[in-house]
Every structure is written in structure tokens, then in C-alpha cells.
């Protein structure tokens, strides 16, 4: 039995035109301490998979089993780092983490222990200098750091990250990726991350799960990344194996699962094909 098991998960959403099948028969086994990325074109249902694991959506068929227990509601043992940080704008960084810590540890930790734990987690993401600032006073990258600290502070069994660096500029993103690698090295978290950035996926993951296009999306291929840790982005840039992995993911995304919009107008179609070639 694996640590986390997604078993024959399908989901349908009701629409006025009848049910829409977003995911079909998704099967995935994840080991404890593994870093798994989900990659695919936008709209392919990556986020839906994550939301099912988080318990925010319920699978229509099949489901998720974490340590032998079925997941059917959201909970702090499956903490989520949301794409746009989702910090409460009226609370400081410290208070945002505090809300989570108070909720998870109110029976097991004393006040002082909670305080130390909050500060420890903010230090982990290098936010100790801006602990008492509110989200509107810090940069996008710092907000996302606090978001990660909040999730880590829940001491989750699985850390779910929904395009955590999608809204950040390239430099900040690289910086945060290094932070995440460093933290995972230290804590050995099980992490599932959604991304559409091929480099990010190869650099961070133990396995990359590539999704086919929707509707009724499912897992196309799974690529095991056998690169030694700790990984260094500069050294890897010239690494043959790294670039092979990269090419393999790109080939999946742009050859096997090239996104073609179903448009009847032939003129429009050829335009879109040109665009996707450019992309």
C-alpha cells in the first residue's frame, strides 16, 4: 500500500448542457517524501486533481486514499499553497501563520511553543525580517513565501502546491524554487506541485506526471527524474541528462498532446496552428 493513492478518480461537473467530464480514470501512487509535479496544458484538469486530493472537490468515481484513509473533506494534513498566495489581507504575515497554527495545534502546543513554531516556519522561508508586515506591504514573492510558511506550519502529511510560482517574475521564481528544494531536503515533505513550467518541473521533481488534454483528461505519461540531489540549476543547465528529460517533457506537451482547439472555421484553425508552433 502506498502512502498516497489516487485510484480511478473521475469527476463530472454539472453544466446546463449536461454533465462535463473533466477527469477520467486517474491513477497515481505516491511514496512518502516524494516530490511529484503535474504538468499539462491549461484547462487539462491539473488543478482539479489537486483539488480532489485537497478535498475541495469530491471525485464522482474513485477517490483518494492517504495512509489508508479515504479523503473526503479538506483538512490541514493536506495543506495547500494557493496560486495567488491567498493570505488574509487584514492580518500580518505572523498572524496569517498564527491562524493556521492555532487551528492545528491548539490542543497540543502551549502559547510559547506556538509562537516559536510560527517564527521557526517564517524563518524557514526567510521571512523573519518582515514578520509583522501585512500582505499589501510586501512583494509578490514574499507573499508566496508566507503562503508556504503557513502551509508548512500545519505540518502536513502532503503539501499541495497549485502553480505556486506562476504569478512571479523569473528571478523571484528561481529564488523560491531553491527555497522549496532546500526546505524539502531538510524536512523530507511529500509534495505535489502543479506547474506549466517545464524547467521547474524537471528541476524540482522526483517524478513528472504529464496530463493529456481535456475533456476527460487523464495521466498520459510519467517521467522519473533520476538526478542527484541537491540539484544546482547552473550546473544542470549543461547537463545532458537534464536536457534529455526536458526534451522528453516538451515532446509530450508539444507533439503528443499538442493543443488544437476544435474550431469549425478552417481559416481560424490554420491561424491557431501557426500560433501554437510559435509557442
Amino acid at each position, binding site marked *: 500500500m502506498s502512502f498516497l493513492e489516487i485510484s480511478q478518480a473521475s469527476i463530472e461537473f454539472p453544466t446546463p448542457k449536461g454533465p462535463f467530464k473533466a477527469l477520467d480514470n486517474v491513477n497515481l501512487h505516491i511514496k512518502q517524501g516524494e516530490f511529484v509535479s503535474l504538468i499539462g496544458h491549461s484547462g487539462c484538469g491539473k488543478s482539479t486533481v489537486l483539488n480532489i486530493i*485537497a*478535498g*475541495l472537490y469530491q471525485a464522482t468515481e474513485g477517490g483518494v486514499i492517504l495512509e489508508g484513509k479515504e479523503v473526503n*473533506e*479538506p*483538512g*490541514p494534513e*493536506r*495543506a*495547500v499553497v*494557493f496560486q*495567488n498566495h*491567498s493570505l*488574509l*489581507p*487584514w492580518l500580518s504575515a505572523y498572524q496569517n501563520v498564527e*491562524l*493556521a497554527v492555532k*487551528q*492545528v495545534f491548539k490542543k497540543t502546543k502551549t502559547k510559547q511553543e506556538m509562537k516559536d513554531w510560527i517564527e521557526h516556519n517564517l524563518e524557514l522561508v526567510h521571512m523573519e525580517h518582515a514578520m509583522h508586515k*501585512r500582505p*499589501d506591504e510586501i512583494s509578490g514573492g514574499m507573499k508566496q513565501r508566507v503562503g508556504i510558511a503557513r502551509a508548512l506550519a*500545519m505540518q502536513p502529511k502532503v503539501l499541495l502546491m497549485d502553480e505556486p510560482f506562476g504569478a512571479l517574475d523569473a528571478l523571484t521564481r528561481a529564488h523560491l524554487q531553491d527555497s522549496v528544494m532546500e526546505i524539502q531536503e531538510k524536512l523530507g515533505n511529500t509534495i505535489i506541485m502543479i506547474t506549466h513550467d517545464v524547467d521547474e518541473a524537471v528541476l524540482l521533481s522526483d517524478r513528472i506526471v504529464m496530463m493529456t488534454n481535456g475533456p476527460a483528461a487523464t495521466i498520459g505519461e510519467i517521467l522519473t527524474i533520476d538526478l542527484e540531489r541537491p540539484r544546482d540549476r547552473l550546473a544542470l543547465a549543461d547537463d545532458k541528462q537534464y536536457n534529455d528529460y526536458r526534451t522528453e517533457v516538451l515532446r509530450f506537451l508539444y507533439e503528443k498532446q499538442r493543443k488544437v482547439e476544435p474550431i469549425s472555421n478552417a481559416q481560424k484553425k490554420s491561424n491557431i496552428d501557426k500560433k501554437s508552433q510559435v509557442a
Partner: protein
Amino acid sequence: MLSFLQAPRQAVSSYFEGGITQDQIANLLKAIGLPVLGFLCFLLLWQFAANNIVTSLGNFPGPSEVTTQFQTLVAEHKEERANVAKKYERQKVRNEKKLAKNPDAKVKWRTYKSRTTFFDQILTSLWTVLCGFLVASFIAIPLGIIIGLSANIYSAINPIIQTLKPVSPLAWLPLVTMVVSAVYVSDNPSVSKSFLVSMITVSLCSLWPTLINTAVGVAAVPKDLVNVSQVLRLNWLTHVYKIVIPSAIPMIFTGLRLSIGIAWMVLIAAEMLAQNPGLGKFVWDEFQNGSSNSLGRIMVAILVIGFIGFLLDRIILLIQRVVSWDKSSVIR
């Protein structure tokens, strides 16, 4: 009022900190000069218009006439209070004399009521509007939160709200009067019936904007924050207290400001129509009097009503500044 006070305050403080620059002088002139200029223009236009409108009670009251009437009203108020004080003084002297002659004599201590002056009417109106507004808010905010949290309850209640919202206070008034007369029966009433009627009418008309705005604000809590709450498994009360209310605070205050404006307008109308004590009754009585001073006194009342309405709005704004986390939002 505050923004128009704050601008010169900033200008003045920076004037004391450093030397005077041309910019600062220009700012000072702008901040103080422009409102004063606007006011002067208004007075001129008013005087001009007043001179050209002749009614059966004489000229329409201009600024000077209104100032005179205001002073008269202040004088009447002082005189009335002085009269009452004199009565008490005389009673004291009289009783002391009696007691000096015969320590066992029975003396009467009467209470004297002064006639209600213009300023008494203002206080009555303020107290009524405050009570009505508080009652409305205590109903509207919790109800708005409940409606906003559930799309089903919202669908069920929305048509009722939309139907009751546009009802004029004057339509409610007869019903409220009859119901209060029938229900509020007491030999020793702690509050008067007229107060209750005015207050309930105010509440009925002013709760809608707060109710609707609270519901909309609560329904608009970002989905991401709701997800955070779910992942943390916050219970219902913590969810409302930590996530929903802070998120909806700006909308709640928008509603409260609309409500206090409506409450004040409704109150004056209700007082006029029902002859309940307050500024509305003052205006109506002056209209019925029809003396040569009446128009001026009504004009004084109108200006006071306007100014109080303005102050009430600013007080809510001040509270919003203290309560709301979002100090950066532009509050007008």
C-alpha cells in the same frame, strides 16, 4: 468635513516644520481659500435669489435674516432655561423661609418643565435617529451575513427585500402608529409612544441598504479565502469572525452610510407627518404659525438638518476608519 479640515492641517504642520516654500503657500491658499470662495459665492447667490422671491409672509429668507433668526432661537432657548432656573431658585427661597419659621412644616418640591425649544427638538431628533439606526443595524448586519453566506437563503429572501425596500416611510407610518398604540399599552410608559413610532419607522426604512450591502459583501468573499478556511477546518463562527466579517467590512460600512442618510431623512418626514416631537415638528409648527419670522426659522431648521446629516455621515466614516483594516482604500 474632515477631509476639508485635514488638508489645511497638513499644510499648517509642514509650514511649522520647515521654511515656507511657494508650494506650501499655494497649497494653503488652495485648501482654505477654495472652500471659502465656494461658500461666499453660495451666500451671494442665495441673497440674490431671496430678494427676488416674495411670499405672502414676506421675502424669502436670505442669509442675514436666517442669521438673525438663529440668534433669536438661541436667545429663546437661554431665556427659557433661565426662567426655569429662576422658578427653582424662588421655590428654594420660599421653602427655606417656611422651614425657618417652622421646622416641621410640610414643603412641596415641584419640578418645572421648560417649554421645548429648537435645541430640545434637535436633541429629540438625534436621540430618535440614533435608536432607530442602531436597531436597524443590529437586525440588518447579522441577517445580511446569514443571507450572504447561503445562496439558497438569498434567493428565497431577495424578492421580499426588493419589494419592501422602496416603500416610503409615509406609507409605513399609519400602520406603525396603529400597531404601537395597540401593542404598547402601559400605565407607566418608560418611553413615549411618539418616540417608538418615529423610531420604528426609521428602522423599517433604514435597514435595507445595510442588509443588502452586507449580504453582497459577504457573498463576495474571495473563493480562495473560503478555501483557506476549509483547509484549516475553521468552524462556522471562526469562519464568520476571522474571514467573512473583515472581508465584508467595507461593504457593510457603505450600507451603514446609506442607511444613516435615509434614517435622518425619514425621521424628519415622519415627525412632520405624525406631529411627533423633533425637528420635523418644529418645521411643521412654524409653517402652521405663519408669522413673519416663520420662513426664516424654517430655513434655520433646514440648514441644521443638512449639517447634522453631514455630521452623521462623517461619524460613520470615522468609525469605519477606526474599525476597517483597509486604511489605504479611498474613503469619501
